[in-house]
């Protein structure tokens, strides 16, 4: 997933938590179970096919209408069994998965092993052109259904997937991948009902899933209405009657609507209001660490960024950015300057390594100027940082980054911001390879593993490798790390791969982002998961 908005999607998130349902019990303390809340949102880039949604806005919805084998704990991010009864392996390569009995889709169809296998085959097949196809790349037979060179596929289904019973199937990987089960909470791995295949257009209009909410209707550019699925069989039932996701093209408008009582929840508090948010909302403002890293990515398909010496230019640009000042002033310290390419939410054991970037992420204007000159100067004498203007207060920080670069280089016009109106349009331009200079690339993790901060973004052909960076040494290290059965050793190998990213400055890390949200006094039980997505099903209204 990618990061999009503030990160990319997070599919996961959820509230699920098997045990402890914070919600639930007893009905006592109030909350009108039938009341609907409204929340700010942006249009997703693509129709909501699980394997085709790799941005955060679409992911938010998938998170509400689907449940997969695993679910990431809304507090810790840990992957816990949801639909999975058991996932067994002896060699980290052959997995036997047993699905829990009793789950159905909201149209009444039972969720079986076949529901998963069909969905995964659909997602992997080149014919269906799914953005997350790459997540199935470790399953045996992937090269047949999705040839890397784009030639005709010689198989329709993955040979590594076998249904062995109504509720059991086996997965054979093409190499060892010890943390494979932890990735299964990502929405690309969600099960799909027959309706998806039988009447695809109707499904796209009104997706049917197996999560606590059902899609009632969706008007692009306006609103998506989700309603509680009363017969939802899972442990994390919705504690409210539904959610209306309202499309905003400016977080300031959403904030104003919240203050005026027209909106219940916004998960994108604009930077310009950070100074006032405490006095406006008091404890109805939450700010929690999230697995989000904001970076500047580069278009390596443009040879001006992919030539000898351009890594010096990128490193110079990185050193021309005064992260400390920007996070203090623009973001009122709700973000932390980044010193590696992961996120502190992973923890030290999980692979976060403070200072891995070294002096390349420190503000050193003189050296920056020198490096950029050595690297041949800025391509075309000027860089344009492309960003979407509808979320995340990106204009403010992009302008600040440009001013910082301009000041360091002593050139008024070295850097300018290039806004794109909406997130969906911005993503389309990126996936259409239309970038000519650096562009905003927020990454919101899909699951809390260091692998997710590196492989999708920098691996050759990775699902969210928007800049099309490619480096053999990095790819080899990632493969090696994935094959590692000792988690600590795997993390160390990933960090070596991360050093390759650093040495080439494949992307400039900016800051670690917190999730922030504000809500109206109608709501209680609002929290953000480690993916910075509101845990909608736990919110009580009234």
């Amino acid at each position: 997933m990618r990061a999009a908005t503030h990160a990319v999607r997070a599919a996961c998130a959820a509230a699920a938590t098997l045990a402890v349902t914070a919600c639930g019990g007893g009905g006592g303390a109030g909350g009108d179970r039938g009341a609907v809340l409204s929340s700010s949102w942006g249009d997703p880039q693509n129709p909501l096919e699980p394997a085709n949604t790799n941005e955060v806005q679409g992911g938010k919805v998938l998170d509400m209408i689907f449940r997969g084998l695993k679910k990431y704990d809304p507090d810790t991010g840990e992957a816990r069994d949801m639909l999975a009864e058991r996932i067994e392996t002896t060699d980290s390569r052959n997995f036997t998965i047993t699905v829990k009995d009793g789950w159905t889709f909201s149209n009444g169809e039972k969720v079986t092993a076949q529901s998963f296998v069909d969905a995964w085959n659909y997602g992997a097949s080149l014919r269906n052109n799914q953005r997350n196809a790459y997540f199935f790349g470790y399953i045996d037979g992937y090269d047949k259904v999705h040839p890397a060179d784009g030639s005709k596929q010689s198989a329709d289904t993955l040979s590594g997937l076998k249904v062995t019973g109504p509720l059991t199937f086996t997965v054979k990987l093409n190499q060892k991948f010890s943390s494979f089960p932890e990735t299964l909470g990502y929405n690309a791995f969600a099960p799909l009902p027959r309706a998806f295949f039988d009447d695809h257009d109707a499904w796209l209009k009104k997706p049917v899933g197996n999560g606590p909410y059902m899609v009632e209707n969706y008007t692009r550019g306006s609103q998506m209405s989700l309603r509680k699925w009363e017969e939802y069989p899972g442990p994390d039932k919705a504690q409210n009657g539904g959610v209306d996701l309202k499309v905003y093209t400016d977080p300031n408008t959403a904030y104003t609507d919240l203050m005026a009582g027209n909106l219940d929840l916004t998960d994108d508090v604009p930077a310009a209001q950070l100074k006032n948010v405490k006095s406006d909302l008091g404890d109805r403002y939450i700010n929690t660490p999230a697995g989000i890293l904001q970076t500047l990515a580069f278009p390596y398909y443009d040879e001006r960024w992919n030539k000898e010496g351009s890594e010096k230019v990128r490193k110079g640009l990185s050193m021309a950015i005064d992260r400390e000042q920007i996070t203090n002033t623009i973001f009122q310290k709700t973000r932390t300057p980044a010193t590696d390419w992961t996120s502190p939410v992973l923890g030290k054991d999980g692979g976060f390594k403070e200072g891995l970037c070294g002096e390349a992420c420190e503000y050193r204007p003189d050296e920056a100027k020198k490096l950029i000159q050595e690297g041949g100067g800025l391509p075309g004498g000027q860089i344009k940082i492309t960003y979407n203007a509808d979320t995340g207060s990106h204009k403010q920080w992009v302008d600040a980054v440009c001013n910082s670069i301009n000041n360091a280089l002593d050139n008024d016009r070295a850097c300018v911001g290039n806004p794109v109106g909406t997130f969906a349009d911005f993503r389309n331009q990126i996936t259409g390879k239309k970038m000519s200079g650096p562009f905003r690339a927020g990454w919101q993790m899909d699951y809390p593993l260091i692998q997710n901060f590196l492989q999708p973004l920098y691996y050759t052909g990775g699902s969210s490798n928007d800049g099309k960076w490619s480096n053999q040494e990095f790819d080899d290290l990632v493969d090696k790390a994935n094959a590692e059965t000792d988690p600590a050793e795997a993390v160390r190998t990933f960090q070596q791969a991360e050093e390759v990213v650093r040495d080439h400055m494949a992307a400039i890390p900016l800051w670690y982002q917190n999730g922030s949200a504000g809500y109206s006094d109608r709501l209680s039980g609002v929290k953000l998961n480690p993916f910075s997505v509101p845990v909608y099903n736990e919110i009580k209204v009234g």
Partner: protein
Amino acid sequence: MPEQPPYEPERAIAGTGMGGQMDLAASEATTLEQPPPGGPGESGHEASAASGERPRSLWSDAWHDLRRNPVFIIAGLVILFLVLISVWPSLIASGNPLKCDLSRAQEGSRPGHPFGFDGQGCDVYTRTVYGARTSVLVGVLATLGVAVLGSVLGGLAGFFGGVPDSILSRITDVFFAIPVVLGGLVLLSVITSNTVWPVIGFIVLLGWPQISRIARGSVITVKQNDYVQAARALGASSSRLLLRHIAPNAVAPVIVVATIALGTYIALEATLSFLGVGLKPPSVSWGIDISAAAPYIRNAPHALLWPSGALAITVLAFIMLGDAVRDALDPKLR
């Protein structure tokens, strides 16, 4: 405006007032031999010096009125000042509008920085002063473009009439039907240029029909005048008729409308820039600054109010000037 009465070239024979038609026969002879009247001011002194002997032209008469109109004087001074700082902003602002120091973001006024700093730590005073240049440039160039294109097309259509006139009238109808802001959002959002030209081009594109209609109406009125018929009877060619006899006498309403429109074009540029489709950074424009400062209004209202104030004063000045010019050229309306 469109309903202007015909302007007689040599109105003044004092006292005749509006009843001009009666004098036509007399004045027409003079007209034919006289060079077309020049711009305002050309004959100011001369006219007053010669008062009593020589009739004052429409233009010298207007100039005479204008000089005594306090609204014109005030607006003129403001505009003169704006033009001066547009040409030479460093005269009153020594800083660099693109040099911003984030550590001073949102700070209020202080010595050397009378207007304080905006959300990016840029000096609001310097940016406000430099913003005048783009506004004046866009306003003046767009008005020139609109006036030239509109009066040429409208004038020709009015003069020749017939099918070309009908076609042109329908085209102007089409352009009139395009909502300006919506058109700007659609047309300008696909343009990535960082210069002022797309904005000027857009304003000309949507602005010319207004002038064209007025010019057409004015030419039609003038061409029915006897002195035009007389010239035609004497064998004057179409181009001579247009250039020597019709244009000088039909241009006044165009000038009036264009002057007033100049102010609205400046406001339009700011509107488009505010919406993000007009000028783009690193251009310095009041619209851009207003847009950037709007979210910070609660914490740093000064960053919003100064460029807004400058914009308001500028637009007001041009509109007041247009009003004064109209009063002078069209005494009937008083």
